[in-house]
């Protein structure tokens, strides 16, 4: 997009000067300067832990800075709480929405403004409709928030901030939860808002999006502002600023030739399962994954991927159908039986798959405690040797005795990878392998997945990152409302066609 548009009086809408924040030994922000003009989308780019979110939490009053100043419209302000931030005209939409799900959109908007004990629902509904029209953000004031899609809920969050007369809007990784079509809708909304003179801070670590929407990009690395560049800066240049070195994407070697009658290592047949409220979540899904092959599952979150992975990992009983690994049935089996059949499991919720309060070395043996138990109890020497070896092999930045909960997201994922891949499973189910990881860690994880493919493992990959899915997978299967609605070699899958299938628009042959 074009260059920055400063305010009529030349003053930026918000200016941060010398923001410094320490957490113990860690410097999250080190003298960061940032300004955002009216009518500007200013992207904040950086790896995980670079300090983007900390900086914006300081601006929104969720965290207090150790040093530095904030100016809004040229006037210094003191922000001690979100209340102060809102009063100064700053709004923030986080990835985790603060909406009351059983209430309607109008009621949620009213909650943000309610004064006193009385609530005039008719006025609330009118306000919601007015705000919705004024900003061109289409939402039904009477819809229950719990019934809305994630993209719609995000719109309600944005409306909530706008309804409080915010002039600076902070969006923390707003696209992390959206499908491609919803991203386009969000960007259209943002363009309308900047046309109205709003200043927008857009936190992301996706280069493509940053270039698509922002006027300027500020890059943070380890708490330090590396630089501010125009929004149309070359992707490679931005990546270099972000990680301090050029990144090279992994690429998938040529597929291994398969005989037509070669049996699949991981065979899912007619599988159905119920979801959280007993409603069908997986419906009659059949997928075959052969040795040395990666099959990707595409789909918007909530279309049965989670439940499918839970069934395959032994954490949920299917209601119908079967799944086998090397001929051994695993559907409905216990996690221990699933592992014994040769399946390695790396689910999306890595925090819930490890015991965060126990050290790395114990988590690394958790799937096979019996192998590390001798007549005198646990063999601590063997456990330590195992940990030292895996930490070196998987380049985990941790000591064996560190509690897993103290590690960064990338290192937590590496602990899980190490635990699973060290057993050289012949089939692997892996979901959202790089979600929340920085570029370096993501590349590492993808490289490991491809290495297992080269070693002949059958891999079922679930990911919401389409670029990742298309890069890694030999074939892509699209899930919509729990059903397989499309399957194609990844060469023939372009993001647009996948996006349509994922949104349930087209039933492909």
């Amino acid at each position, binding site marked *: 997009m074009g260059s920055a548009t400063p305010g009529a009086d030349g003053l930026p809408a918000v200016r941060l000067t010398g923001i410094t924040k320490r957490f113990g030994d860690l410097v999250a922000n080190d003298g960061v300067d940032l300004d955002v003009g009216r009518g500007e989308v200013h992207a904040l780019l950086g790896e995980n832990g670079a300090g983007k979110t900390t900086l914006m939490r300081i601006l929104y009053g969720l965290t207090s800075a150790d040093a530095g100043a904030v100016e809004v419209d040229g006037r210094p302000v003191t922000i001690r709480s979100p209340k102060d931030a809102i009063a100064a005209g700053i709004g923030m939409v986080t*990835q985790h929405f603060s909406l009351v799900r059983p209430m309607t959109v109008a009621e949620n908007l009213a909650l943000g403004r309610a004064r006193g004990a009385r609530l005039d629902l008719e006025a609330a509904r009118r306000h919601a409709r007015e705000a919705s029209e004024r900003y061109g953000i289409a939402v039904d004031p009477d819809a229950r928030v719990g019934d809305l899609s994630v993209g719609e809920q995000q719109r309600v969050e944005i409306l909530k901030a706008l309804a409080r007369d915010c002039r600076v809007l902070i969006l923390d990784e707003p696209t992390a939860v959206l499908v491609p079509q919803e991203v386009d809708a969000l960007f259209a909304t943002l363009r309308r808002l900047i046309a109205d003179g709003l200043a927008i801070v857009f936190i992301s670590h996706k280069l493509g999006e940053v270039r698509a929407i922002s006027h300027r990009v500020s890059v943070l690395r380890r708490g330090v502002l590396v630089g501010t560049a125009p929004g149309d800066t070359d992707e490679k240049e931005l990546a270099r600023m972000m990680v301090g070195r050029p990144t090279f994407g992994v690429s998938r070697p040529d597929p291994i030739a398969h005989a037509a009658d070669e049996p699949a290592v991981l065979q899912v047949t007619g599988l159905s399962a119920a979801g959280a409220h007993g409603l069908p979540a997986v419906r009659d899904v059949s997928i075959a994954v052969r040795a040395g092959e990666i099959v990707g599952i595409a789909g918007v979150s909530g279309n049965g991927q989670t439940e499918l992975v839970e069934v395959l990992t032994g954490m*949920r009983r299917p209601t119908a159908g079967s799944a086998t690994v090397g001929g051994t049935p695993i559907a409905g089996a216990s996690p221990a039986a699933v592992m014994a059949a040769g399946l390695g499991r790396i689910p999306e919720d890595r925090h819930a798959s490890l015991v965060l309060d126990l050290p790395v070395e114990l988590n690394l043996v958790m799937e*096979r405690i019996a192998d590390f138990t001798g007549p005198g109890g646990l063999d601590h020497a063997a456990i330590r040797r195992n940990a030292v070896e895996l930490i070196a092999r998987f380049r985990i930045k941790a000591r064996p005795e560190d509690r897993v909960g103290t590690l960064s997201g990338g290192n937590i994922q590496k602990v899980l990878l190490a635990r699973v891949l060290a057993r050289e499973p012949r089939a692997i189910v892996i979901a959202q392998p790089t979600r929340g990881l920085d570029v370096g860690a993501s590349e590492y994880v993808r490289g490991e997945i491809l290495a297992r493919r080269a070693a002949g493992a059958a891999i079922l990959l679930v990911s919401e990152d389409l670029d990742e899915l298309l890069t890694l997978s030999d074939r892509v299967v699209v899930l919509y409302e729990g059903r397989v609605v499309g399957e194609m070699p990844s060469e023939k899958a372009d993001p647009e066609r996948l996006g349509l299938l994922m949104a349930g628009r087209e039933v492909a042959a």
Partner: protein
Amino acid sequence: MSTPAPLPKVGSRGSALRSTIAASGSTLGLGLLAILVALILTSPVIIIAGASPIDAYANFFLVPLSSQFRLLEVLVAATPLILTGIAVAVAFRGGYWNIGAEGQLLLGAIAATGVGISIPADWPPIVVVPLMILAGALAGAAWALVPALLRTRLGIDEVVTTLLLNPVALLFVKALVQGPWRDPGGITESPPIVEAGHLPQLMDKSRLHLGFLLALVLLVIAWWVLSRTGIGLRIRAVGLAPHAARFAGIRVERTLLGVALASGAIAGIAGVSEVAGIQFRLTSGISAGYGYTGIVVAMLGGLSMPGVLLSALFLGDLRVGTNKAESALDIPSQIGAVVQGVILLCVVGLLAIRRWRISRSDRPADEAEPPAEDERHLENAPA
């Protein structure tokens, strides 16, 4: 990633308080601070009771340590507390919230008495004592079985069921001593148990008995199992993160059931120790709330076995001291229970504050953990 500070999740089993306790590992410093705060908070009660807090605390804590006889009495008072403390700590470490040690202790006492009054008087102690201990352990485990099955099979909260079985157990004791086991002498106590069932005294002129050594042995075993064995690792994993434990192939329900029964058995042995070491018969006052005090012992000791020993000795000291203070300062011995209760509240309060501060400020926002949702998959997971 950019997660806001975790919100406490309120649920039947996944409550913030319980996850705080399971992951507590409270330190000596935290325990001492809790005691100090509790003493300050209890001072007004002592002043109302008509004594100076300084005098009272000197009587509570220092006087019992002033002679060998009193010191040994502290060990006598600590014996049931070590046992119930182990019972509670083992259960809590596994994430099983056994509040029923009191009832399990009473059932152990009933079983020991049953053996002790019905066994032929000429059987040797080497047979009778182990038999009583075995019977008490089995009875304690049996009393723990129903709540444990309700929890592991039907997901019914064990806090309520174990707690509610405590008065039932006491009524059971009362029914026995007023009915079938009523002493022919007419008082509402059981007849005395056979001589061979008496736990041997460890020293002359002291009530200190074999139960104290038994408690220490069980303490060491519990420590070894929890920290040095595969079973212990499974128990800790289940207590800290049941979902992750299940995912790693650990049979969570079986582990919980085992922990619940072991906890009940150890509490039952506490009942055996009181019958066979102190009272030599069943009375309705056989337990002075030892099962409940075990919760304080376990929490104050940070659920660790060395901690359990230290806090049981401390609370044994307090128990002896409050009895002394009753005669010396004319203040009711119930003040001791008040101090104990306030200590428990202070430990839990300090743990919660510490946890809150960690989650709020000691971690950069980018690394904040997602809200704990440890048990959201339990309902659909294979048993």
